[in-house]
């Protein structure tokens, strides 16, 4: 089982290159986060994986097979690429049912998924009248309909309420850890992603700039500590020539050392550690900001135009 394997993907729109020789892996049983600025190529990768974009260089496979070669792709790969990609004049129930019929599923499974996603109460409502969050739920319902082994989700959290975000997080973790599924999920909500992703692929201007496991990122010699006696801990760190700096307005101490070493040091000197975050809070965000550059940067403030 090779999971999802992307090799040398290149794609351009007109003269503008969208992806340049992109390669990465999504191992079986893991959640891989795909992050990057707007226009960095996240959606293009998902579209190439699902054969929605016809011409390109490189390969994208699921256990060694192209999406086009899977017998019933909807049963093996669940996808959510565009929450509004359904007919607005059709009912929610009928929208999910048509997807179910297309992949050969019966009414029972369709009812079950509608129930799980909290869509039973709006089953008769027209799809076009739903809010973004409810449309995302319909998209997720269709993605998980066929008990797939792979899930490809493009910003699935957009518009979801807290309860649905929590459900999605727990579902994805269970899907990978217990069912052996494989997830590739793109998101701009880095803290949320950081809480459950096993690996991360960071894109910048159509290229992969980071492909690493979260464990490896967290062990890159940095952590954040909240100690009962922060001053004493900081003194010990200074004595050991370990760099540290106050963070979160002084409530935390960011330390340039492995979390285990800091824990042992604190224990050795009798300092009570109440919180220890390997990699530090916002690890992914810091990494992202240091390696990814947006093709379309926002300005830092409103600029007054001269008359």
């Amino acid at each position, binding site marked *: 089982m090779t999971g999802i394997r992307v090799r040398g993907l290149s794609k351009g729109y007109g003269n503008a290159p969208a992806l340049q020789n992109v390669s990465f892996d999504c191992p079986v049983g893991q959640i891989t986060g795909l992050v990057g600025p707007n226009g960095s190529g996240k959606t293009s990768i998902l579209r190439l994986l699902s054969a929605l974009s016809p*011409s390109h260089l490189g390969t994208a496979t699921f256990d060694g097979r192209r999406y*086009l*070669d899977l017998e019933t*792709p909807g049963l093996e790969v669940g996808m959510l*690429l565009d929450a509004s*990609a359904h007919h607005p*004049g059709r009912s929610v129930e009928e929208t999910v049912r048509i997807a179910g019929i297309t992949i050969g599923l019966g009414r029972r499974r369709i009812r079950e998924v509608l129930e799980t996603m909290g869509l039973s109460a709006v089953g008769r409502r027209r799809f076009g009248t739903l809010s973004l969050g409810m449309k995302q739920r319909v998209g997720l319902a269709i993605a998980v309909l066929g008990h797939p082994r792979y899930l490809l989700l493009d910003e699935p959290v957009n518009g979801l309420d807290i309860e649905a975000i929590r459900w999605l997080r727990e579902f994805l973790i269970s899907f990978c850890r217990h069912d052996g599924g494989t997830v590739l999920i793109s998101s701009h909500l880095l803290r949320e992603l950081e809480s459950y992703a096993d690996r991360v692929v960071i894109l910048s201007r159509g290229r992969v700039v980071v492909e690493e496991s979260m464990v490896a990122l967290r062990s890159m010699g940095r952590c954040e500590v909240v100690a009962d006696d922060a001053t004493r801990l900081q003194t010990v760190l200074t004595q050991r020539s370990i760099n540290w700096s106050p963070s979160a307005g002084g409530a935390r101490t960011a330390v340039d050392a492995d979390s285990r070493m800091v824990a042992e040091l604190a224990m050795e000197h009798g300092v009570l550690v109440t919180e220890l975050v390997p990699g530090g809070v916002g690890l992914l965000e810091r990494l992202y900001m240091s390696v990814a550059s947006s093709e379309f940067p926002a300005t830092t403030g409103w600029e007054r135009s001269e008359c």
Partner: protein
Amino acid sequence: MLTAQTAAQRGFVVCVTEIRKVVVTRSSQAILMSVVALGLLISTAMTVVASRETGQIDLSAPMLSLTLCVGFGSPLIGVLIMTSDWQSREVITLFLLEPRRGLVFVAKVVATLMLAVSAVAAVIFFSIAFALCGVVAAGMPLVYVTALAEVVPLLVACVVGAITGSALASAILSTPLAVIAVIAQTVLVDPVLSAAPTGWSSYLAPSSISDYLTGTGRPGSAAAACIVWVLVPFALGWWRIHRREIQ
């Protein structure tokens, strides 16, 4: 790669899905209901008028009226099946669930044909029902000999109309533009070319296909019309659908 058997099974499933979409989607329902309502209205009027003049209920009266409506509506069925996914962006979901575009293309054409044949069956059923109602209500005798001869032309007209609608729609891939195109073809291009003196115009008239299939036309004209109104649009549609970015 898919085996021929699996491809056929997948094609059948997509075909069933496409038919279901037409039946359960509001816009399609509105068009189907309009055609049925118009058909019933004209049929009633024609049956009543004809029976008063002849003193008998002729099955061909409601059948001709319904044929007119279905003949006008069948290209629209082809348009709806071929383009509605692209119009609503549901094409993303469709090609995610079944990414083999050629298979989907063929399934849509087959679904169009199946619906056209179903429409003909419905016309025959309703025509007989109408005529029998007339017989019971007015106590007049039923005449059906001429009506039987109209069944084959009716079937051919509906199928050819649906296929040309589907072909044009596949090349255009926009519901409003395709609807305009098939209406223009039905009410403008075909009558003008058919009315023109015999010559090159018959080679371009879409009705040359139906005429040949019902034994009244020439094979050369039918072949030329078939190339212009069916094969070329289908080839263009096939090429466009395979090349197009789905978004």
